[in-house]
């Protein structure tokens, strides 16, 4: 919501879609992993070049765990630093910031996390870690702060209602996932959030913020011994508890649907899609490389080429898989002025159909592989990127050699595999379409 942001215009959107690969042969971070006494999984990478440390603790405690209490996962997460171990929110915030430390937290459909970035100088790091531990393991959920955070969530929901981009996305997940927990807005809805109580949050916290449900990621300027101590002090101050149970299966769509939401905007925002892949899916690499050709490689992808470069219909036209615990969505979309909406939509459909029927050309496949493999070193070129990847690998139980085998996995993908995977997994006639915009 920062006004300052709008100064800078870029040639294309900097979509924050995590590219799900990493590491170059010579610069691959060496991942060490162990389990704490109470059962938390730890992933650690030593990086001593900069005097900084990143710690991130991830829980299977996203909104997919909301049950009937829509928004409880998000609100529980955002309440952690609003009072802990008798310290109020000011003391918590001041405790981190007077030492130059940065505290963060967040939650999505699958995961919820808390993070700390600190200088690695012990005099600064130790007290910040202690405070981080308090926030993580002894949150107080004060009633007054809860009521304020509840109101802020409601304000956030109103904000979403004025943004076509949020409206279309919420409706899209709703239509793709039906009764599955992924269907709902991670922030809940106005009624469900208004009905939440501190008791609900405490119960949610107690069930899901437990050691066996946690992954601890440590990246930076500490030794293995220090990392072990840090992980133990954080995770083993939590009860062991239980890993969250498996989420229900996602039902495939068996017919197309179109939802139109009227909104007084000059553009129509359009999303098309269906359930896609899960993490660790055997078709993942074929679909990932295939989508890179179709709509995942920015302006050189087919969808962007057809909709933007050839016809000037949209600033941003794209497709991407969101791999999750269960089948995350395959999302294809664009925005365009209302009188061009039908044209753009039919170009999108034709482009996808053509790709499913014929797959990538050899030249396209080579270009995509070159891009993915050649760009490999960029993905783990900073501590913060490494931290993100470790969180993903740990949370989704991917093999520890995920990074070191990535290039080989990409290289091995053939055009035939892509065609086969797309034909089996992507059904353009059974997709959800959501349009937000003016009637005509």
């Amino acid at each position: 919501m920062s006004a300052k942001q709008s100064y800078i215009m870029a040639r294309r959107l900097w979509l924050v879609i995590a590219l799900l690969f990493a590491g170059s042969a010579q610069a691959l971070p060496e991942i060490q992993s162990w389990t704490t006494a109470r059962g938390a999984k730890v992933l650690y990478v030593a990086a001593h070049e900069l005097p900084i440390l990143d710690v991130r603790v991830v829980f299977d405690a996203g909104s997919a765990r909301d049950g009937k209490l829509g928004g409880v996962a998000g609100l529980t997460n955002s309440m952690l630093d609003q009072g802990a171990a008798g310290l109020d929110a000011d003391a918590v915030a001041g405790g981190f910031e007077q030492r130059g430390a940065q505290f963060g937290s967040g939650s999505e459909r699958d995961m919820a996390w808390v993070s700390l970035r600190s200088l690695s100088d012990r005099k600064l790091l130790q007290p910040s870690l202690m405070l981080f531990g308090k926030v993580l393991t002894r949150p107080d959920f004060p009633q007054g702060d809860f009521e304020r955070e509840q109101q802020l969530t409601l304000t956030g929901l109103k904000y979403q209602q004025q943004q076509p981009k949020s409206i279309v996305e919420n409706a899209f997940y709703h239509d793709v996932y039906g009764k599955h927990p992924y269907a709902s807005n991670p922030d809940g809805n106005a009624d469900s959030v208004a009905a939440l109580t501190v008791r609900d949050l405490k119960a949610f916290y107690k069930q899901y913020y437990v050691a066996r449900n946690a992954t601890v990621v440590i990246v930076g300027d500490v030794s293995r011994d220090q990392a072990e101590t840090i992980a133990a002090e954080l995770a083993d101050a939590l009860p062991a508890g239980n890993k969250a149970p498996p989420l229900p299966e996602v039902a495939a769509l068996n017919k197309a649907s179109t939802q139109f939401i009227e909104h007084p905007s000059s553009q129509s925002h359009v999303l098309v899609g269906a359930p896609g892949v899960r993490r660790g899916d055997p078709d993942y690499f074929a679909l990932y490389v295939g989508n890179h050709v179709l709509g995942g490689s920015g302006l050189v992808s087919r969808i962007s080429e057809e909709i933007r470069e050839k016809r000037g219909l949209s600033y941003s036209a794209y497709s991407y898989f969101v791999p999750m615990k269960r089948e995350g969505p395959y999302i294809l979309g664009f925005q365009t002025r209302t009188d061009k909406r039908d044209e753009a939509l039919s170009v999108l459909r034709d482009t996808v159909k053509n790709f499913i029927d014929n797959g990538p050309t050899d030249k396209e496949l080579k270009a995509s592989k070159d891009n993915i493999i050649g760009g490999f070193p960029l993905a783990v070129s900073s501590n913060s990127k490494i931290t993100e990847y470790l969180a993903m690998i740990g949370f989704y139980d991917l093999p520890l050699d995920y990074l070191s085998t990535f290039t080989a996995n990409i290289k091995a993908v053939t055009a035939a595999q892509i065609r086969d995977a797309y034909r089996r997994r992507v059904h353009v006639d059974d997709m959800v379409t959501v349009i937000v915009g003016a009637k005509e």
Partner: protein
Amino acid sequence: MRGWLALAVSFFTIASYAGQPVHEYSLENGLKLIVKEDHRAPVMVSQVWYKVGSSYEHDGITGLSHVLEHMMFKGTKAHPAGQFSKIIAGNGGSENAFTSRDYTAYFQTMEASRLPVSFELEADRMRNLVLPEDEFSKELQVVMEERRMRTDDNPQSLTYEQFNATAYASSPYRIPTIGWMDDLKSMAVGDLRKWYEEWYAPDNATVVVVGDVDPDDVYRLAKKYFGPLKPSVITPPKPRLEIQQHGPKQLVVKAPAKLPYLLMGYKAPVALTAEQDWEPYALEVLASVLDGGDSARFSSRLVRGSAVAASASASYDAFDRQETLFLLSGIPANSHSVADLQKALLAQVREVQEKLVSASELERIKAQIMADKVYEQDSIFYQAMQIGMLETVGLSWKDAEQYLPRIEAVTAEQVQAVARKYLIEDQLTVAELSPQPIDPKHPPREGGVAGNVR
């Protein structure tokens, strides 16, 4: 105050960590090259910065710099439209470009040995752009879509655009970088050609490379690729200073929305224009007193505390090219009005004017800024961005190195002094977004000419 001494000592040690040294070179044709080593990973970022942006534009041609940025990907004789991005992608690179009020910049992030690929393409399009008519007419449509998405359909951005056009009377900062829709509609490829010839030349460019590179090698490559380019005769833009404001300005923007929004801006000097060298740094510290994190005053007093705000922020940029705005903004909390929020923000302004900031508050802010400088070293992109931005507005990369000591030297008295001198009503512009019903039957008339402000 317990523990402050120990902390101060720690920060002193940390502050000596400034990352790698910076190397500066000049080519005979006037191109400036700046290289910073970072060998943590076998990658590099290469950025080309031009001294041109929307603050170089005038009425009738707004948005020109940004459209030209888009057209820079539409081909040269050697590399026709579409090839640039394909070559970079084929080399595993990621690339983009951005335009702001004071600069236009292009970048590629790639495995370090691919630097010649980036240099060859950038040197080529610095002087040899073709600007085909048919590509232009399509790309202009794309930019109009960008405008609709970013501004016309976004009530807060729309408010901000109107706010800027009101706060500044004569300064080119009143121009939106994306351009007014009518100016986009009347833009011709000839306008772009003129603009390109006026600003795109080695003597108006700074190349910044940060990463796993050897500075002298980079220099040799720069000479090879950029060296043969002919310099131009660059006429620096006229000063176009903001005229003296003689009293508060106020505006209301009505748009379909669910939430109100408040923007307040005070005219403020920047590093290039300040009467006293320390003033911009005191203003930076002042912005942090108000909004430097969750423990700063706005968060602790307005979002928590009185809970009058759902969000409240303060921002100021000492490194703009011209006189700027010290900006306060926010969304009132559910049970409060914009007027309540405005009153609360003004009360915070009054307090910094009347009462000295406490020593512990000042220490906290300095600790944060110091730590942030270390964290910034984790991103080669950010390091390059900072160098390029400073050089392009007319400062120097050395100012980045001087930033910490200058912040460190700011006193509580100086923070109070700038608050008293600049945060005054006569220099204030206030904009309010007044939410109108989201009525699907009444879509906005296109283009922000008059249609969006009903």
